[in-house]
């Protein structure tokens, strides 16, 4: 009675292998508000900082967000850098730097595009390319002032070392 013939067994459709392959999930790390990090941070994933960081943050191909609770005294190198908290240090971005209304930056910023929202606090210098359509500057690929070159060169040297390891 319960036995079904083979013809009556429902077919289970198996999706093609390409659909079954899981999509890669973009990794994002978080430094929580109670954490204090002293030293260099390098890697290959996006980072949100809600705690305190002293040192260097080198994530050249990734997005870095300094959240509202983030307090950093560090030089930062990333693809895009968004500041909602407080930064004392130099920011270098391959694509864009955004300082939100609640953000506060004391230091130098260098990126093809820099957006400052009204209300954001900033003291320092902003190195601008002149047009967002220009190819983003590769660190060390152009003549730069000693101060900016020192920051970038130092950060890129560390990034190169971490990539090799």
């Amino acid at each position: 009675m319960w036995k079904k013939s083979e013809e009556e067994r429902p077919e289970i459709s198996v999706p093609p292998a390409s659909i079954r392959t899981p999509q890669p999930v973009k990794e994002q790390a978080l430094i929580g508000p109670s954490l204090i990090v002293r030293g260099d941070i390098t890697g290959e994933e996006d980072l949100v900082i809600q705690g305190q960081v002293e040192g260097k943050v080198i994530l050249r191909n990734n997005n870095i967000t300094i959240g509202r609770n983030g307090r950093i005294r560090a030089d930062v190198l990333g693809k895009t850098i968004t500041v909602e908290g407080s930064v004392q240090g130099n920011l270098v971005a391959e694509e864009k730097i955004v300082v939100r209304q609640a953000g506060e930056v004391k230091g130098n910023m260098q990126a093809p595009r820099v957006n400052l929202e009204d209300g954001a606090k900033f003291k320092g210098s902003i190195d601008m390319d002149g047009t967002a359509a220009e190819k983003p500057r590769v660190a060390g690929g152009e003549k730069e002032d000693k101060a900016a070159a020192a920051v970038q060169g130092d950060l890129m040297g560390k990034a190169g070392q971490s990539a090799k390891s």
Partner: protein
Amino acid sequence: MIQWFRNRKPELQPVPQPIEQAQKSLAFNALCHQFPAREKYRVLDLGPATARNVEFFGRIRCRLHIEDLFNTLVSFDYFSASGRASNDAVLSYLMPFPRNTRFDAVLAWDLPNYLDRDILRQVMQHIARYCGKGTVLFAWVSTNRYVPETPLRFEIMDEETLQCTGETAVLRAAPNYDAPEMPRLFPGFRICNSFALRNGYREYLLIFE
């Protein structure tokens, strides 16, 4: 310098609404056309950072230094173990530009109205170290009896239009510096252009020689 800021008390006057106006500026327009042909410009903005100003200078190859000098001086809390630091030492600490810096333009906005003669001269003497022949300086000097208690917020709308916003309706006495005083207050600079505005300010374009 610090004592000067702390002892100032605002004069409470019955006043109209805070200033908020778009102002045509011949001097700023002249400044924009004064830049010599160069691969990269250096601009010193003594006012606070604003989105529009960053966007304006972002259209040219430029290094924009933003100092927000008024708020920096007001909020600076210093102590010296060996006694009072000199104003020159304080200014070097607050504005530590790289030694080889040469600004093409200095935007003083209306800051001169908030510094007494000696302090203004010392501030400009410090800045003059980082200016070269041809550096242009833009400033608004009030000819009114009173100015807002804090500097106006200047936003660059385009090469000839500035949006000026007052943060407060409270007024203070204006120093009313006049044209013959300018070379002494801005050492190394001479007046290139000067325009009287209807709002009671006179705008100056000075050039470093």
